[in-house]
């Protein structure tokens, strides 16, 4: 994204709209810090510029990963996967993605609203790989890995920045302590934040097998979350 300096009238209306706070006044024109811009397109779509000074650019690889991970209206050109992640728990009633005894663990790097460089995505992915998780095959971050067993990413993207990037994995309930330990260590080594999600099939009484190990590890579950209500058809039937 760029602002045409010939058109900008310095009204400053666009400044608060940038989720990365990458627009500022330089003299008498608004300017985008291209290194901090994640190409999310919010400033352009907001339509607040009275003189249409925003110019949406199409970028080549590797900068193209910015829009792919940050603009929810962009389909991943390189990853060929729409959105930032997979369907994960949303369609597990028909896909059977999360079977009993297994959980999905997702670290969404840069969320909420801080943004992330891919070198930090790699740090956390490598920590998760060492803890023994299996990365989701159809996830955009997994697609950027040169080695799925180590979590190493393509070197040319490491300094690129995105609004957020999801590292999705599946592991066993027994392996939860190892993953949490790895994530705690990695969290201390990064410049950004991540939200952590655990996805699991629920027992008949509404409880989850992961609750006990998480409690033991002093990892609290928030009071709100997402529930798949089992209306998808054909319903996946897990073999006993």
């Amino acid at each position, binding site marked *: 994204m760029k602002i045409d300096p010939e058109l900008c009238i310095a009204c400053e209306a666009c400044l608060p709209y940038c989720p990365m706070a990458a627009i500022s006044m330089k003299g008498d024109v608004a300017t985008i810090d291209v290194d901090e811009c994640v190409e999310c397109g919010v400033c352009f779509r907001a339509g607040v510029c009275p003189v249409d000074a925003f110019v949406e650019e199409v970028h080549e690889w590797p900068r193209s990963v910015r829009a792919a991970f940050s603009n*929810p209206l962009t389909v991943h050109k390189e990853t060929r996967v729409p959105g930032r992640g997979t369907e*994960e728990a949303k369609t597990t009633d028909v896909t059977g993605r999360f079977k009993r005894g297994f959980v999905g663990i997702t670290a969404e790097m840069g969320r909420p609203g801080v943004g992330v460089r891919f070198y930090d995505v790699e740090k956390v992915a490598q920590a998760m790989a060492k803890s023994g998780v299996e990365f989701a095959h159809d996830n955009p971050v997994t697609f950027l890995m040169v080695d799925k067993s180590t979590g190493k990413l393509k070197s040319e993207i490491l300094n690129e920045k995105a609004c957020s990037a999801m590292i999705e994995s599946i592991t066993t309930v027994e392996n939860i302590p190892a993953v949490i330990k790895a994530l705690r260590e990695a969290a201390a080594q990064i410049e*950004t934040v991540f939200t952590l999600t655990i996805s699991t099939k629920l027992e008949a009484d509404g409880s989850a097998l992961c609750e006990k190990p998480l409690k033991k590890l002093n990892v609290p579950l928030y009071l709100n979350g997402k529930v798949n209500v089992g209306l998808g058809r054909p319903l996946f039937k897990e073999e006993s």
Partner: protein
Amino acid sequence: MTHTLHRRGTRESLSEDYVMLCLPAVGVNNEGHAPKLKKFLEIATKYDPVNIGTIKLGNMYSHSKEEVVKAAEAVVHAVFVKQGQVADVLKDLEKADLGMSVVVSGIFEKVDECLKKAGLKHHTANFSLGIWGKTERLPSNEILEVTTMCGHAMVAANLVREMVKEIKAGTKTPEDAAKVLAPQCACGIFNPARAAKLMAAMAAK
């Protein structure tokens, strides 16, 4: 995609925040899914949602409700502020038997009560284990309560601060300020009714 997870807030505030989404599974039941998603939005709009949206187009603050319903594709969303609305939508969805996956976000116990009323059960859950890493880079909790209602982080913290300033100055009502924020969240999962309350409370300080 965990875009309706990790919404921050107090129990009281989150008690007025429910997001429902409906989608097919690619490669399983996605053939001919668009009319089913349209039906989902038609059912949802009967119960006065505070927002509806479809990622391919946008939400009811950037387009008319009719345009959003017509454009239903891939994944659709509806936001409600009352448990009763969610239970009613779930009852209608069960009868409609669309065969699409349906997910409800909210306080677990409250969602559970809605499911019971509709005669449905939990299948799978996504739990939030919080925010990790350099949390000192985050804005204040009260700002996060508003911005996390867009899981793609398209609602900027600075825009919330700007709106609070305008409410304080009397140049915008909280409701009008929320209408400035809502279009930024293209999926339509942002809850403007809750945002208005939160910003009014911030402005009153």
